[in-house]
């Protein structure tokens, strides 16, 4: 099973609050792969679960590890990493 991993820093002002979390979950849910997120060395959570993503409490400056397992793993990780790097489009 293909696997993809990337580590990205959270740089938007308020970190993973409800709105950015919704967007990550929205993207992750479109992929067939299993997608997880981890904050630093913490527990990996289901990126398709908004409640799990919110429990990461990832503030600005946190390092997120995105991991996907499945046939579309590569694209899933790339799209989520892109979203985080672009600060979720926040200005």
């Amino acid at each position, binding site marked *: 099973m293909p696997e993809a991993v990337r580590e990205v820093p959270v740089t938007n002002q308020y970190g993973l609050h*409800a709105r950015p979390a919704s967007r990550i979950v929205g993207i992750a849910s479109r992929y067939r792969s299993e997608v997880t997120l981890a904050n630093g060395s913490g527990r990996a959570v*289901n990126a398709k679960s908004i409640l799990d993503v919110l429990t990461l*409490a990832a503030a600005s400056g946190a390092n997120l590890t995105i991991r996907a397992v499945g046939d579309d793993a590569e694209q899933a990780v790339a799209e989520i990493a892109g979203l985080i790097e672009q600060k979720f489009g926040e200005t």
Partner: protein
Amino acid sequence: MEIKKGIAVSPGYAIGEAFVLDSESYRIPKRVLAPAMLEAETERYRKACEAASAEVAGVQASFEKKVGKAYAAIFEAHLWMLKDPQIHAEVLRRIREQRFNAEYAVSRAFRRYAWMFRSMGDEHLSLRVSDLYDVEKRLLRHLLGQKRESLTTLTDPVIILAHDLTPSQTASLDPKKVIAFATDVGGRTSHTAIVARALEIPAVVGLGTVSTDISGGDRIVIDGNRGVVIISPDGETLKKYEGLSTSFRAFGKRLTSELKDVPAVTKDGTRVELMANIELPEEVESAVRYGAEGIGLYRTEFLYAREGAAPTEMEQFKAYVHALRTLSGRPLVVRTLDVGGDKVMLGESQPQEPNPILGCRSLRFSFQHPALFRIQLRAVLRASAFGDVRILFPMVSGLQEIDRAKDLLKAAMEELDREGILYNKDLPVGIMIEVPSAALIADRLAKEVQFFSIGTNDLVQYTLAVDRVNERVANLYKPTHPAVLRLLKHVIQSGADAGIRVNLCGEMSGDPVYTMLLLGLGLRSMSASPFAIPELKKVIRTVSMDEVRETTEKALAMDDPDQTSAFLSERARQILPEAF
């Protein structure tokens, strides 16, 4: 089994099923389903999710139109919660494997996350907890449909759990069906506490998150004597509390009838005065019924707690005179308005203070609202023409405040003189000793007033810098801390030296565990909730001053407040096994 600690506001024990009130006063039922029903239940849950999602999408769309996309974004998160795979998995597991009904399964799943969010303690996250409840409630509304059980249709006796009971909720309760209360917030003077005492059912408040951690249908124990709630008690605990509950009721009845008309005197003849603290005018009657020798603390906040305007001079005057009539000659100590902190607030909105406990509360508030204060002083003075009224100023921190309060009282007297209205010119003036600064200079303050009333709740809180309603530090709140005991000793001694009466009206005086210690520190006047009086009297009548002195000496020699408390509990148990 899980144990939660709160503030005991109404004594007694109750064992029963939890009835969790949400803000809409509906109950979350808990049932175990027959295996044949599990598929239908799963389907019912799916449909509720769909219906709730459609509803949220509708709200989102209309919100977007009204205030813009950015503000409607939170509903995006709500929609994702309704689709959350972790929630779905947990709910389905509870339905299919544990055979619970969908409402209970949903409530458990959401509350588990709520609990996780809260325990993370992140400021940003607390907002999301309310979102979680919002979504949970929406789902439950769809699940419950027309079958929602409301408070007015209770069939079996239950224990009511709520964030905070509102007057309209308690008004709709059937008192025969409610055996106890437990709430997240509140203190001794909260509405829940007052209603519970009036109904004479046990209550624990200030539990933090009890209404959200417990699901409807859970079996719980309420210990209104120690301020403890036990969730899903084990067999042994259950048995213990069944026994306690039976003996408590029998003991209470026997004590009241046995001791109502005998004085509180130790075996060797030391007389102690037992007065009652009350919050509502109706409680004066129960104070007399339980054998109080007067009202040691008449809280006037309730007069101000009503919606709208502050009470007029005539309304207050009538309330005080009504109490005096019921007391037929016994003293009535009226404490002037003590708002702020956890107390009832005035109808008018007060500016938010970053540190209200150290802010403009109590006497400070009265000084800043001279018109309001004047009305109260006049009302108390006028009532003093009709009985033994004494006035008590709360939260004094130094001499200058006494001077100022006395000046204002004098001005009110002069007004009444000019108007030819009668009052007691020698109205006894007392102060609460509840701020450490006042306790430390009690010897100086004793020369300026006719009596002291020690408020241990605040004195402990200020001395130890612990907010006992804050669950994260409440365990540091210890009335037997050596610093507190040293202050108490100093205050009581200062009062005795100056020849003035010293009363203690904090919760400490109502707890028989501390009775011997307080007597040993020299206290001869206590004021407690009416129902506590028979028990206190029983302890006093059972001990001798030699025993008291010995117990006190040992207690004062201890450095660890927990050890002191354990020792005092053990001593009290030896003296009066039935009560513990």
